[in-house]
């Protein structure tokens, strides 16, 4: 295999792996649920993207023709990951999950979980 191709694939993979790992580390390290929500939705998704591209390159190289069906997984992920995060955030709001004390604008939680505009609270 061509060294440069190998290098390209390797770096894509390693980068992807790294992001995946970071996402999971974030899942452990970050201190509250809302914050934790950021790590896997983004880092992990991106990391997976890296691995997918790596795989695409690898397979295309291996089989001698362009293999792009990995893109499909990416497509799915890009469509679904935000929705998952959104739903989980909704649940967190609904359940009034405790958050870091220094979280700003905590007042929004009350209105957000009722799906009400923020002004209403300010009026009261």
């Amino acid at each position, binding site marked *: *295999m061509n*060294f440069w191709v*190998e*290098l390209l*694939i*390797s*770096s894509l*993979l*390693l980068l*992807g*792996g*790294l992001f*995946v*790992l970071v*996402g*999971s*580390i974030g*899942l*452990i390290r970050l201190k509250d*649920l809302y914050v*934790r*929500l950021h790590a*896997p939705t983004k880092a*992990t*998704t991106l*990391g*997976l993207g890296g*691995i*997918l591209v*790596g*795989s695409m390159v*690898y*397979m295309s190289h*291996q*089989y001698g023709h362009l*293999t792009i*069906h*990995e893109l*499909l*997984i990416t497509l*799915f*992920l890009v469509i*679904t*990951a935000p*929705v*998952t995060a959104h*739903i*989980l955030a*909704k*649940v*967190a709001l*609904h*359940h009034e*999950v405790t958050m870091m004390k220094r979280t700003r604008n905590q007042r929004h939680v009350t209105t957000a979980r009722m799906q009400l505009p923020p002004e209403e609270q300010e009026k009261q």
Partner: protein
Amino acid sequence: MLEWSMIAVGVMLCVALVLNLWRLLIGPHVVDRILALDTMYINSIALILLYGMYSGTQLYFEAALLIAMLGFVSSVAFGKYLLRGDIIE
């Protein structure tokens, strides 16, 4: 080089999976666990792709695709459950 990097990525993915499991077990909130599960789905997609590359086969692509599709449905269902109790209403 490629083989070594694959092994390295494998190790990373394993560590990531174990970390996910760790979060899944400690919670503290159910949403944390669902999040951990969802992350696990994505990480296992990575693992399967890696395995496909490692053994030079495309046989496992559909499995990865399926995890992407079904993992989403399952996470959403969990979420809906926590929101409404009744997931099909």
